[in-house]
């Protein structure tokens, strides 16, 4: 018989978790419980005698602060909301609770006993209606894709039974079966594909059928007892051919036409022409680029004895379904990429980028999760995933646009470090050899995460399988991380890769290509519960798993080490030179495919791309008169959603663990203003460090994606320069998130234009990186950022995200003591503006606030800015400058204010001195978003040297730093003071919108 232990804080102690629910209910749903208390429930599906029950409650009850009981705790309420996981959803607390019980009860506690955790919320809310309580449950506490809930009124509540005994155990009375799928006709195969959610591409179907009908193939298959393809084989093909794994869009054939000039050209694979070729050329020129374009992450030299590795991912679809679990599996998942790069890297930092609808969205459309709730979940998912992994989250960005209502964007970036040589060989090299064993390490396999890859290659709709939504388990992964690093240093790892998208299907399939074949014994794969079909075991994306190649000689030592770290490792097959992917289940062959088959020429995807330039689309500059209240204007600009303080997020993220923090995400006297970039020392005995920055500027896509990409790269680069990074050793990571670009007259009428936007973006990427000399160390693309949202009448609207590219940049800082931060340091320091301001407010925050999109999107000339960046590096290196801050979204007005606010000092600036390209009114000078600019403060004693260094460049002294807690004073071009506001007032305005969320 099962037991239910209820645990709660003593009633005289405040319950912060309950308080959070109470305040969110008020803020988000305008319902006002008097108080909320949380009861933690552990349900144990095992027979325990009284002594054992007492022992268990001792483990989980803190005698100083908690009360507990196997009967419902008597906590006053008007309503109770119980929330627990659905069967099969990862219950991390349940798993650790089981571990602890085994410690106490030993063998008396059967290992397979179910242990489940859930929460009971006790609401004091006399006047609350059942409907309001249901909203709190549905819109605040539970997500029906992973959780179930029940509501009890005071009347319905039974003091002796409480919530009852709810056991979410997975029971599958199912005999694993392999299904053979007929390939008589294309139609038949496609029908099966739809019905089984294989998401096979219709164009691929003939190639697939042709293979399985080939006489020689049929003969080989007959020998192993196969005829037509099995479901597991088709799943394997579908995974490998998915856009997610195969990047069919970026490898597509693009017929591009400029509708203004009529000129057209054809591009064969954007990936090859704009990413691979340029990167290979850079690799030739840059000896510090170690390994790119083939592994889970790119590798670059940190110092003579270390390489750093970096990659960036997105986890949009799952986060859109279940924000917390999706974002958590995103960050925990991207952390497996460096672990699976070369012989394995140790994780040293992470970054994030969130794009959602506005938190206060109140429009007609009904997204799956309201942006506010979605963002909360995403923030908390990355918090728990990152913090519990023991990896500092040192940089991030959040961008609001209602175009992300259809699908949100969750970017996650990971950097690791590895010794340059492992066991005497280069650490970035790895291969599999016939005879080596295939070992799966880490978590077990369940039905969770099935078809994640194919689902993320689809537009979100109500039919998207919720099965691919998961919760990450950073605890299990951290144990595996520590174990694998030790195994690596003992030279036991021949090859390692992670199980992410596609699960074993991808990791084993890809690693087998090195050896030239593999044999997999599927029945050996450890499962969370019985009853999975063979194909499910093969493609499940259950998290926290790595696939490792180990020589039979090392097997015993490897397994012993694994056990010592409490990590589960299992031999599931061996590598061969058969040329085939051979999968057996209890000796029965269920898949037998030539590895070359995936290389056979599947038809290339073809896209029509039609570009109509902005002017032709009717865009023009707005006609705006001169504002007369610049004080309020600046305050309101600082309070804009895409400019205001995000401190509430940054503080939730451990950004200093591992003790390498040099420049933190927040800086200044009040430690509250965002740094231009983060700087981290990954090797504690070294004074070298990694500078890291990210940028995204989707607003510019409304005018031209070419400039969107060019300006995004410039911002990321300038952010590094601002902290003291050398301009000639910068590596980049591109993450594209794009709407569907395949034209369809009814479902995607503007597909040709979106395709043209992608072509221009990729060419801007190539040309800008070439000009800066930036190799792309890694990158990913995530297409289909669209959603169909119900409107007021039940009709659905397709919402496509603005074309977005996040660019991440890294550089190695040779000597950390030279780094600078962006805060104005001392009264009397001189204020300089470096770089020209032009009439470039199209797509600017200022125009957006005024309700316009202009035409003059910022232009980038790398030839002009790069020499300036080199000078800035020298100025910083020669310690001439007190502070350096790039001018980004919001323009000079916003970024002068930030520099002053960070120093908590006044600043007086004369706009007439600001270097500019052409005549510009005061508002234009203050809010133009021209590229290549910095705000710099310099101690008077360095004035001469600094001005000499920048002689000939666009650099002018525009003012002076004022007294402690002084005013920001800006003098207009006519010599009149147009802005005079206290730094504290500006800071208040900047913090007001989201400040209360800390």
């Amino acid at each position: 018989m099962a037991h239910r232990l209820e645990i709660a804080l003593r009633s005289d102690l405040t319950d912060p978790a309950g308080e959070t629910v109470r305040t969110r209910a008020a803020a988000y749903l305008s319902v006002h419980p008097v108080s909320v208390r949380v009861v933690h429930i552990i349900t144990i599906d095992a027979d325990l005698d009284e002594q054992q029950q007492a022992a268990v409650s001792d483990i989980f009850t803190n005698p100083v602060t908690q009360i507990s009981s196997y009967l419902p705790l008597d906590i006053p309420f008007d309503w109770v909301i119980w929330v627990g996981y659905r069967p099969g959803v990862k219950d991390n607390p349940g798993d650790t609770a089981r571990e602890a019980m085994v410690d106490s009860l030993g063998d008396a506690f059967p290992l397979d006993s179910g242990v489940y955790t859930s929460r009971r919320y006790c609401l004091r809310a006399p006047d609350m209606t059942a409907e309001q309580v249901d909203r709190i449950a549905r819109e605040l506490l539970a997500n029906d894709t992973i959780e179930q809930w029940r509501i009890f009124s005071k009347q319905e509540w039974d003091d002796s039974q409480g919530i009852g005994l709810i056991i979410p155990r997975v029971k599958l009375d199912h005999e694993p079966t392999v299904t053979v799928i007929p390939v008589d006709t294309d139609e038949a195969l496609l029908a099966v594909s739809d019905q089984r959610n294989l998401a096979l591409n219709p164009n691929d179907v003939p190639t697939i059928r042709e293979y399985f009908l080939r006489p020689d193939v049929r003969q080989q298959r007959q020998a192993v007892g196969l005829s037509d393809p099995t479901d597991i084989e088709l799943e394997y093909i579908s995974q490998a051919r998915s856009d997610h794994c195969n990047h069919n869009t970026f490898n597509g054939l693009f017929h591009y036409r400029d509708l203004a000039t009529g000129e057209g050209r054809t591009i064969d694979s954007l990936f090859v022409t704009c990413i691979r070729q340029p990167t290979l050329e850079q690799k030739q020129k840059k000896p510090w680029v170690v390994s790119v374009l083939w592994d889970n992450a790119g590798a670059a030299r940190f110092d003579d004895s270390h390489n750093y590795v970096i990659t960036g991912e997105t986890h949009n679809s799952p986060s859109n379904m279940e924000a917390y679990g999706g974002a958590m599996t995103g960050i925990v998942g991207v952390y497996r990429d460096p672990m699976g790069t070369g012989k394995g890297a140790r994780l040293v930092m992470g970054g994030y980028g969130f794009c959602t609808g506005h938190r206060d969205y109140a429009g007609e459309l009904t997204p799956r999760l309201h942006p506010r709730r979605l963002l909360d979940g995403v923030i908390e998912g990355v918090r728990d995933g990152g913090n519990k992994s023991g990896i500092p989250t040192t940089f991030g960005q959040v961008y609001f646009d209602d175009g992300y209502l259809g699908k949100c964007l969750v970017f996650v970036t990971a950097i690791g470090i590895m010794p340059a040589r492992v066991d005497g060989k280069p650490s970035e090299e790895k291969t599999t050899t016939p005879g080596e064993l295939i070992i799966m390490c880490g978590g077990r396999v369940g039905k969770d995460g099935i078809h994640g890859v194919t689902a993320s290659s689809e537009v979100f709709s109500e039919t998207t399988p919720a099965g691919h939504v998961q919760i990450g388990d950073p605890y299990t992964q951290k144990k595996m991380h520590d174990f694998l690093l030790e195994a690596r240093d003992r030279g036991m790892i021949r090859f390692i890769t992670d199980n992410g998208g596609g699960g074993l299907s991808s990791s084993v399939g890809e690693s087998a290509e090195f050896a030239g074949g593999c044999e997999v014994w599927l029945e050996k794969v450890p499962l969370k519960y019985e009853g999975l079909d063979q194909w499910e075991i093969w493609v499940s994306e259950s998290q926290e798993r790595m696939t490792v190649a180990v020589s039979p000689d090392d097997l015993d030592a490897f397994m012993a080490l694994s056990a010592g770290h409490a990590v589960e490792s299992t031999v599931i097959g061996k590598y061969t030179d058969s040329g085939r992917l051979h999968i057996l289940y209890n000796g029965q062959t269920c898949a037998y495919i030539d590895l070359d088959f995936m290389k056979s020429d599947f038809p290339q995807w073809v896209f029509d791309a039609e570009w109509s330039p902005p002017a032709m689309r009717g865009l023009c500059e707005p006609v705006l008169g001169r504002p007369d209240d610049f004080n309020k204007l600046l305050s309101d600009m600082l309070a804009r959603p895409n400019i205001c303080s995000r401190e509430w997020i940054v503080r939730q993220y451990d950004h200093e663990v591992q003790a390498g923090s040099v420049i933190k995400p927040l800086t200044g006297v009040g430690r509250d203003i965002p740094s231009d970039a983060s700087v981290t020392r990954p090797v504690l005995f070294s004074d070298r460090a990694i500078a890291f920055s990210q940028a995204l500027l989707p607003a510019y896509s409304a005018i031209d994606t070419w400039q969107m990409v060019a300006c995004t790269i410039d911002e990321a680069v300038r952010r590094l320069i601002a902290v003291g990074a050398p301009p000639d050793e910068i590596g980049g990571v591109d993450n594209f998130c794009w709407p569907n670009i395949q034209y369809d007259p009814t479902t995607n009428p503007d597909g040709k234009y979106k395709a043209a936007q992608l072509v221009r973006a990729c060419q801007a990427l190539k040309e800008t990186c070439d000009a800066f000399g930036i190799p792309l160390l890694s990158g990913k693309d995530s297409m289909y950022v669209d959603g169909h949202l119900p409107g007021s009448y039940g009709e659905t609207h397709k919402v496509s995200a603005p074309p977005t590219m996040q660019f991440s940049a890294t550089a190695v800082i040779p000597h950390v003591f030279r780094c600078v931060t962006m805060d104005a340091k001392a009264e009397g320091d001189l204020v300089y503006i470096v770089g020209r301001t032009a009439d470039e407010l199209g797509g600017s925050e200022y125009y957006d606030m005024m309700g316009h999109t202009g035409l003059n999107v910022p232009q980038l000339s790398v030839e002009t800015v790069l020499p300036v960046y080199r000078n800035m590096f020298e100025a910083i290196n020669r310690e001439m400058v007190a502070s350096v801050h790039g001018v980004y979204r919001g323009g000079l007005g916003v970024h002068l204010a930030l520099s002053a606010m960070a120093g908590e000092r006044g600043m007086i600036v004369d706009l007439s001195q600001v270097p500019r390209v052409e005549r510009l009114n005061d508002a234009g000078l203050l809010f133009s978003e021209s590229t290549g600019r910095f705000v710099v403060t310099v101690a008077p004693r360095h004035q001469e040297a600094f001005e000499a260094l920048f002689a000939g460049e666009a650099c002018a002294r525009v003012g002076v730093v004022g007294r402690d807690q002084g005013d920001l004073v800006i003098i207009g071009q006519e010599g009149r003071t147009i802005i005079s506001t206290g730094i504290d007032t500006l800071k208040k305005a900047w913090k007001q919108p989201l400040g209360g969320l800390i």
Partner: protein
Amino acid sequence: MSRTVNALVLCGYGLNCDRETAYALELAGARAQRVHINSLISRDSRLSDFQIMAFVGGFSWGDDHGAGVIQAHRLKTRLGDDLIDFVTGGGLVIGICNGFQTLVNLGLLPGCDNDYRTRSVALIANDCGNFRDDWVHLRANEASPCVFTAGMTAFDLPVRHGEGKFFCETQMHARMSEKNQIVLRYADDSGQPAGGKFPDNPNGSLDDIAGICDSTGRVFGLMPHPEAFIHPTNHPAWTRQKTLAARDGRASTDTGSTITDGVRLLKNGVDYAAGM
């Protein structure tokens, strides 16, 4: 130093500050060794070979059932009295963040009058309702027997926790303050105790308590992270201090030689152990 001091740094099961804690102890003059909880349990490593034991920060067992609860339970059930023998035998113990949480759940703290078994204080969820990473000012109790803070009065360290609110009953609090077992308190810019004011007191701790020791002063637990201030550039104000110092001709650009307060705190412990 009269002899080498061996320091044991626990690792495994989701702990994550073991590398930097070991490195910091080396900077402080000890010979530090990272030891997996399991090899301590299997007795492959023996406590008796060490003079200092460090319980480090992290999320042991995911901290799903109260921070440090399951780590304490595992050590209690599997290590038996080894820990208590180590302490009563004169060994030094420092518990940082998750380590502090573990020490109070083990009962090694507050360790009044050699009672190293009773749980009588707790570290619970921050009043702000969230995990919080920020630097804090700390005020040390000069009258405290704590060997780690000897000669230290006021200094800065980072906190990084979701469950750092110190709580105990009034009598216990009175007893601890009377015996000067309250070692560290969160302070304001002026170095005076924060008086509960957020964010100077980041979690709502009773009496601004950030760290306590047992009655001997050899067992010390604190929420802030000394091992995260082992390089001058760890301090959030270092760039400002550097430029300002350069102006009045103080300090060279390379401030690498100076010992940080994080290392100093650990060095106090190492020097004490060396002198034993």
